[in-house]
């Protein structure tokens, strides 16, 4: 499993952070944008009509959102309706593995959002967050 793109999407489905994790992956960034944008439809579907029984705990991990020919999009939604999305290459990823990755990603976001100088729901420009995401998510986790 190789992560190729990490993205944070705000409450109003506006992009807060978008980063291609491929080396030299800027060429494909528009495609990733389209794919993540499209996966928001799936997020909406999953959030509005969750397929879980009444006893189940609310889970942040949304699972596979949108499979394309080459990539798969996985999603995670926080309590504040911040969506974390990851695009992986076409290899099948295990859900447990993805959960771990998303937890790290979420932690990094929480750290960045706790910065008193950060205004909620605005684009994340923190270099530290960027380096954390790059360092923790790029190598195989």
């Amino acid at each position, binding site marked *: 499993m190789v992560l190729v793109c990490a993205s944070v999407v705000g409450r109003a*489905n506006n*992009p807060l952070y978008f980063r291609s994790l491929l080396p030299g992956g800027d060429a494909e960034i528009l495609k990733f944008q*389209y794919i993540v*944008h*499209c*996966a*928001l439809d799936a997020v909406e*579907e999953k959030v509005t009509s969750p397929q879980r029984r009444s006893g189940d705990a609310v889970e942040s991990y949304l699972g596979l959102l949108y499979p394309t020919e080459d990539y798969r999009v996985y999603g995670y939604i926080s309590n504040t309706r911040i969506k974390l999305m990851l695009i992986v290459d076409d290899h099948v990823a295990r859900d447990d593995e993805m959960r771990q990755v998303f937890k790290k990603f979420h932690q990094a976001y929480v750290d960045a959002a706790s910065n008193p100088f950060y*205004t909620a729901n605005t684009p994340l420009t923190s270099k530290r967050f960027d380096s954390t995401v790059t360092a923790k998510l790029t190598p195989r986790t």
Partner: protein
Amino acid sequence: MTSVQRIIEPGLTAFSAAEIHVAVVPIGLVPQEFLDQYLGLITKHRQVDLGNVRSFYKESQKSPFKFFPWKTGSMHFRFLSEEAASRPQPLAGLHVHRKTLAIIGILHCPAATEFKRAYVRFEQVCRAYPDAFAIRCFAFEPSDMLVTANKPDMPNLVLFPPVRAGGLQQLEGHAEVVMHDFAASLLGELEKWMLTASPAMVSLNTFADSSDKFLVPSTIAEEVSKRLYNDEEMIRKRRYGRCQKAMGDTALLAGSPADAAEHYNTAAELCRLTNDLVWTSAALEGLAHSKVLESCIASGALRDRTSFDAATTPSSPSPSPRNPRIALLQAEHAPASVGSHTSSGFAGRPFWHALRQSNVEHDVRTLFADARQAVRRKGAIPLLVEQDLKFARFLAGLHGSKARKEVGDLMNSVVETGAALPLTEDKLMTLMEAAQVMGLVGSARKRVLLLWQAIEFSRVSERPNISTLQIARKALEPPDDPLEGGDEEAELFRRKTPVAPGVPRHWAAVRCGCIESVLNTAILAAQHSDVWDAAALLLREHCSELLPSRQESLLNTLAAAAHQMGIDDRQRSGPGPPPLLIFCRCLPLPEPLRPQELQILPTNARGPQEGPFIYSAFGDRQQQQQAAAEGMRQQEARWVAGEMGSVEIEISNPTTMQMKVDRLALEAEHVGDPSIAPRDQALGALQGTPSWRTHPVALFLPPETPPTKVVLKGAALRKGLYVMTGCSITSLGATWRQKWSLPAATLGQKLQPSGSVPPLSVQIMESGGLAEARVTVVQSLPLLEPRLHAPPPSLVPATQPESDSVSNTPEGTPKSSAAAAPSASKSGGPKPLPMAALKGQVLHWAMLLSNAGSIPVTSADVQLSVVASAPASASGSQLRRPLAQGVQVTVGSQLLARALPLLPSHSGAPSRKTQVPLLLYSPQVVSQGEEMAWLELRLEYSGPRPALSSPSSPASPDSAPSTPTSTSYLGRRSTVPIQLRLMPSLQVKGVALLEHHEAIQAFPPRQEQQPDTQEQLRPYLQNGQHQPQQRAEPLWNDRPPDSSGEDAVMAAAQEAMSAPTIRHCCVVEDALVYGARLPSGKGHPTRPQHLCRKTIPAQQQATVAAFAAALRPPQDTGDKVVQQSLSQESDPGLSCRRHQGGNVAAGQAARDGGMQSSRQPSGAATAAATICQQLALFWCLGTPPLQGAATADLEVEAGMLLLEPAAVQAALLPRPLSLLLPPALSIAFHAVVPSPGHPDNQAPYVLLQGAGESKAELAGRSSGQSTARWGMRCRLGEAVEVQCSVGWHPHRCHPAAGCHG
């Protein structure tokens, strides 16, 4: 077969099988606007009820339809452009409804030079459609010769009546009849085909049987089965099955789904039996279609005629028509076309709701599943994709976004399957259709992704750039409405719509990607207008995301595209690049121009109409409500038709380039007048009168200009409601209409949860524009220009020159050179007009009114108010001073009422001015120094009243005297604020009461008493012959005439008068102090002389000693004349109120007070009050204008000097006098020395020796008949003492007693 490029048709639905394809072919040259009109006439009849068709239907043979729904059914047409209809239809052998079964030619006769050749051309076109059953050539606007000519060789020609002869309604009615006839003939042909259909006509080797583009290569098992079913019997059955399928299709097209279902059932059975899988699938699909249509008819889901009629031509934005006929047609349809998109019966909320209720969904599901299964076995992928798309559209219509998941899965499989399609066009069509269906269920983002993939695919597969551009444009458009059918006629109408940003803007990168792809493909396709639109959209909405270099290149692209575009295209109908405009508000008109609701009483019923009750319990509340309503009205901007209004906007340039706007003009739309019917408004709009006149400006915007306020102007020319739609901007070689954009969100709005506020895009799309952008325009009103005309000393010039020069004239009307017109400054109303007055002065002003508008003034009223507090514009130093109280103004309203109506001054003729006299009494106050007073002259006027007010017109005031006859009118209120500087002048310094003999002794040059007395009496006596008749008579009339007693009294009085010493007279001594603080030097190099005038009523006997002590002025510029005279007040409206009618009571009080002991404080006070009441001193300003008639002295500026009751009382108390106030009084003036005459005034002057060293002249002369005056001329800066005694004079008994002096 080799030319087949596409198998999959766009826009297929579950109802497509019931639509007859009709090619609409313009023959020869048809101008676009006429073509649009004719197409509109035809496409209106996309659905024709069979009930209407029946009257045109001729049953020539027995109908093949057993269950034909004559009452409830309908036929459906799908009108195709020539291009779409002539495209090869490879599946026409499989589906009858893919064939083009009818042709309609459109011939615009004025454009066709040779009619016969045009008809031959039409017949040639028809030959390209061999399957066509019905052919019609619609000839519009035929010439008379054509109408009368015999046309045996033109059987299919249908002439339409000319619009000029019968009007548009007749044209529409004609089109309806023709279309019903067309449907009836088509029905007859279909029936004929049904009757003659036989299995022999069916081909077994169609495109669907053999083409490798339709079927995947067959497997060995299929080959085996093909041979197995290939015997004669099977072939016969197969033919029969296919024939049944075709008959089912035809029955469905004819509008009889029940018959169709029967045929489809047979076909499905037979085809399944013969292993004809493609036809089995098609028959099952047809069965599903017939079930759906059957339930449509059964449930009444198809729209009834009325709502169908309301639906009209596609409501896509059309360019403004140049032809009035088309404008009229569009205007007629404009109100009805709102809310409906297509004229098809297969759309709309009620349709889908009825279908949802009919439980047809289960059957359709099953049938489609069977059909898919059959076709999958055969591997006919295009058919599979089509069926999936049809089914998905059906689900989307039925359930909307609730079916998102199911439709999404279906579309995923469609896209996957579509990838295996052999034809490129089909692959592309699959992607686009899947995208459109995803848009129907609300997956706008997936739609964008699919369309983006389609663009990329189109680019990769090297399709023509224009086709790619169409896809790219589609990606930007908003998704279709699931409840409405697709806009299938867009191709037919060929309207160019601007690039519309349909993608939500919160994901800028995706949106930019879409727009960039449009831009790039448009550049490649050389579609300059699309290039311009896309570049403008990028700059307008994504400026912040673009690099400066990119912005610059986009601006260059814009300029280049504008250069390449045609002249018509340079007038863009849509929005363009920055500058962005934010609407702030419609500014209300300045106060004098603002229309107001006025309560003008009819002229004869002036004065408040009061009820029988003094106190009204509801009065307060009513007043509050009125005040609140007034406040609301002040907030609301109301403009006047034909006059300039202002709108405040904010303009911003977000780009990093500087922009030059050649022309920025406000655009407004006349929405309508609530008092006029919509149809009349539409007709009014056609009369060619423009409804808006704009006032363009040019701007230069530096880079990154933040929102900056700009005031734009425009004149609404009609009455009604206007909406400010935006601005027309000309820049970079193109002109476009920029709509208002929303102000940037504040931080608080940004931080709000997204669910609580509607997204910005929703607000901006609100129909009718922003609520604040509406302004009410009232009918034209007259415009009066009030100018204050005052004698020169009253105006203080040069202190505030701008207030004099600025006029309140609106632009567009001739400017006046009003020197004293109130200025209409933008904030805070007009500046007060600075005036100056002396304390106690009586000012004679006039207001000059001229009508600068175009409507006569029929009612006008002038009101006056004294503003208690200083306006905000007053400076701090002025605020600290006390405000003078007691300023009184009288207006000659009757003169104004008599002058009505004031006709407007035309441009050529000199303006007529009406003069309204004003009389202002400035108060005489004790305090020293200058004081300020603020006055407001309010002029209310209105034009001709509406007819409604005729019952309350002043014609019948007596008929309903108890009811108030006031009505509220729309008029104007003009305010002339006056800032009055009150400068000190004469002042009563002290009062002393002397015994009469003391007063007499104070004049040394008296030699003998008798002549002296006569000399004293002379001026008055000359006058007294007439004056007492006027003045004293009421008093005498009050008392019953008692001639004997009266005579006795008079005799006693005369005796007393002639006596050398008079003991029992009261003497009042006044000290007049002239506070010489008049402005000197600059403004008034020659200050006129001051004339003091003293008026003493005839019913009083007193001796007045007046000391006019003139203090030292800055410049000794002239003489001062103190003049005393009897007052002659003929016009109560123009005179001092103190002397009106109060003489009886006052005289009585004085008498009572006088008879009592003056030691009593109450008696003294009463006596003092009476003296003050009765005694007033007037003075004049200016050269003594005493030569004219006596009445003329009211028009000179006169001042009034009042005695302070406290001062008089103080003078009374220490001197225990017994006041004797007999009923008859006379005045005696102590004219001491006969004057030698004055050079200016030929009347003899009498020198008066005053206290001090001054030499004063006392002019005693008679002027006119009723007034006697004498004056005293003295130098400024010197104290003057004047004594006068008022003594007995029995003039009434001896009218000519003193004449012989």
